[in-house]
């Protein structure tokens, strides 16, 4: 066990690049990020405003990379980063931030605050200040292959169940398939209906696809805890499997951060461009719709709304696809206030859901989502992230709200024309 403050400070020093320096020097202390963050708006506690969460990184930048800070350091005037500070900041950096990136949207000088919090986690993690829940999830991801400890036999059993129920074979380890589907552990364990839905839709559309037994896990705990080395290892497993099967496209499933991890951070983590494309499942389904390969025979009549998963909509840009798909299948679709790229986070992303210590605040900040839902009173909520889905179900129960959660992929499969 070798986490130490020195390692943490060293990691923070590595994280300060010209982008970070420019961000810190251009911050005008306006405080607009506060009102964009549900952890601030729902608690009213000023220490939870986004820019304050990056204080450890800011201190390193100031004392190591600015003239005044360096002079101050000589005279012992510059504030130091020590274990006391990091202990205090643990709950701000991990429990009170879902890396949803809403703060980055409103910053008038264009600072990507979410990115800076992600970078701050790099220092926190190796200084031994990451939450236990996330360390556990990361350890399982690296050693077992899944943050929830799901092993291959579990997937194989679920595949068998799905095959029995649909009577269709699920292609496994098929070389040269066009698409390679990744799954999140949550989908394997909690929502196997997702696998069934994809199987039905792809079968009907005549899509050539496969699941790899060597890399089926889409999630990336390394990104959530903030250790790029481990995150890169997890990405590399997918890259190796995709290259081995020579697939053209890797599909990220209904999971927010998995999509961000493989599509946007992935090539940067492994240090070279992928030989395949990465698409979110909704992007693939929308392409099928545009090609006329996704036919619907019945429609949803109940009042539906769409919860935008932060990493898919705001940070991922997949905003119009779900709406085009919903347009095809839903008669009564209503948008929540603050929708699309300005949607409010469910409160459990960015590793918060793996961190039991954050349960209380996670449920408290759900009030923001509750207000959004109260404004339109939907019959059901559609989303495209298993993590959002689990958290919404949990929190809705906590608030005694009886609104079912639907997966968009599964809903489309239910209405598929024969």
């Amino acid at each position, binding site marked *: 066990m070798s*986490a130490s403050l020195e390692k943490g400070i060293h990691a923070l*020093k590595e994280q300060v690049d010209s982008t970070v320096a420019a961000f810190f020097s251009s911050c005008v202390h306006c405080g607009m990020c506060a009102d964009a963050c549900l952890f601030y708006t729902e608690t009213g506690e000023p220490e939870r405003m986004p820019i304050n969460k990056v204080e450890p990184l800011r201190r390193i930048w100031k004392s190591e990379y600015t003239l005044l800070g360096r002079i101050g350091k000589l005279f012992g005037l510059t504030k130091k980063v020590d274990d006391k500070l990091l202990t205090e900041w643990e709950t701000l950096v991990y429990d009170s931030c879902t890396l949803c990136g809403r703060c980055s949207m409103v910053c008038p000088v264009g600072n990507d605050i979410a990115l800076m919090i992600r970078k701050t986690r790099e220092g926190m993690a190796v200084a*031994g200040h990451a939450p236990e829940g996330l360390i556990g999830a990361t350890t399982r991801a690296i*050693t077992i292959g899944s943050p929830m400890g799901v092993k291959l036999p579990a997937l194989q059993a679920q595949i068998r169940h799905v095959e029995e129920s649909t009577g269709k074979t699920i292609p496994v380890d098929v070389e040269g398939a066009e698409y390679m589907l990744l799954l999140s552990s949550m989908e394997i364990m909690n929502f196997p209906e997702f696998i069934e839905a994809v199987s039905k839709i792809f079968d009907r559309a005549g899509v050539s696809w496969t699941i790899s037994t060597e890399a089926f896990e889409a999630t990336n705990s390394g990104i959530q805890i903030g*250790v790029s080395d481990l995150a890169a290892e997890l990405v590399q497993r997918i890259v190796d499997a995709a290259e081995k099967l020579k697939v053209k496209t890797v599909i990220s499933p209904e999971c927010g951060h998995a999509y961000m991890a493989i599509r946007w951070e992935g090539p940067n983590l492994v240090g070279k461009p992928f030989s395949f494309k990465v698409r979110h499942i909704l992007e693939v389904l929308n392409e099928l719709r545009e090609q006329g390969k996704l036919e619907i025979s019945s429609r949803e009549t109940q009042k539906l709304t769409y919860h935008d998963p932060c990493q898919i909509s705001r940070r991922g840009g997949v905003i119009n696809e779900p709406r085009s798909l919903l347009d095809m299948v839903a008669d009564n679709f209503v948008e929540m206030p603050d929708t699309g790229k300005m949607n409010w986070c469910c409160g459990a992303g960015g590793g918060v859901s793996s961190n039991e210590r954050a349960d209380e605040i996670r449920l408290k900040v759900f009030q923001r989502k509750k207000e959004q839902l109260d404004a339109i009173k939907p019959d059901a909520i559609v989303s495209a992230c298993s993590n959002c889905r689990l958290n919404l179900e949990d929190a809705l129960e906590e608030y005694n709200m009886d609104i079912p959660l639907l997966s968009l992929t599964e809903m489309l499969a239910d209405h598929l024309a024969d």
Partner: protein
Amino acid sequence: MSDRKNTAQADLTLGEVLRKRGISRRSFLKFCAATASMMAMPPSMVPAIAAALEKARRPSVIWLSFQECTGCTESLTRSHSTTIESLIFDHISLDYHHTLQAAAGTHAEAARIASMEENFGKYLLIVDGSIPMGNPGYSTIAGVSNHDMLMETAKGAAAVIAVGTCAAYGGIPHADPNPTGAVSVGDLIKDKPIINVPGCPPIPVVITGVLTHFLTFGELPELDHIGRPMAFYGKSIHDRCYRRPFYDKGLFAETFDDEGAKKGWCLYKLGCKGPTTYNACATTKWNDGTSFPIEAGHPCLGCSEPDFWDGGGFYKALSMPTENITQNIIYAAAGAAAAGVAVGALNRAKKSKAQATHQKVKLEDLNK
């Protein structure tokens, strides 16, 4: 049918158009009087203005937008409620304006060509935005470079009005290091009368004033040494500023939140460029005469002056040298720049060192 209707509309005089819009003779004369006083003309001129405006046919106006932000158009079209200024502005025949015209693509360009041919030698050309000379591809409209479109359109213009600091003096695109090689209208057109109406953006009433003058007298108003109408740009902001008495008494706000700032003292020490800026803000004000920057507590930026963006910091008092710096200061600046480079190199070295000594993080590194 629709053509005939348009022609009929075009044949109406301004007086007829205004009456059709329900503008009374009284308010019309009030506008003429206001314009006369604003442009420092004797009261005896008011009937002359009224008579001339009454009879004026709608002049054809072609508006070209080059490297600009549309702020000038925004300013000039924001006439709070329907005012006579805006009506006059509405009832010039604005034949071509990227932002405001309904036509698009080839139709838009056809409208420009048609208007140029019909009104050759008579139309007014209004330009906002600077013209990039570095590479014609930096800004094109319908595949035509800004330079070519300006030169082509200026040929038949009676006069050219450069609206906004970009068109008048190059403005922000022209600011150091001027990556697009931006130049002003006056840098390119030498054979036509040019009126500069600078400001970032300019005050709406200034352009209606210039138009009124043109309609009344058929000629351009008196201009200062850098092509601005004297009537609006004849006095500095400082000379007309309501905070001037505090300057004279030596009462200055030192910071934005001190007693002086609260008491409305002079903003000179906070970098106000009022003393070197010539514009009508202090008298005509903004937002329908509501206020202007200094009244809102902020120093003047000097936006109607050439090179205002390169004149040193907005918050540096004018007595600090902002240009023509002496040799010593050049040395000091070079020294500071060298120090900056050295600090930058040091920072890079520190970061490279941090990265070079990176130890791959393993699972055990997560626990103490």
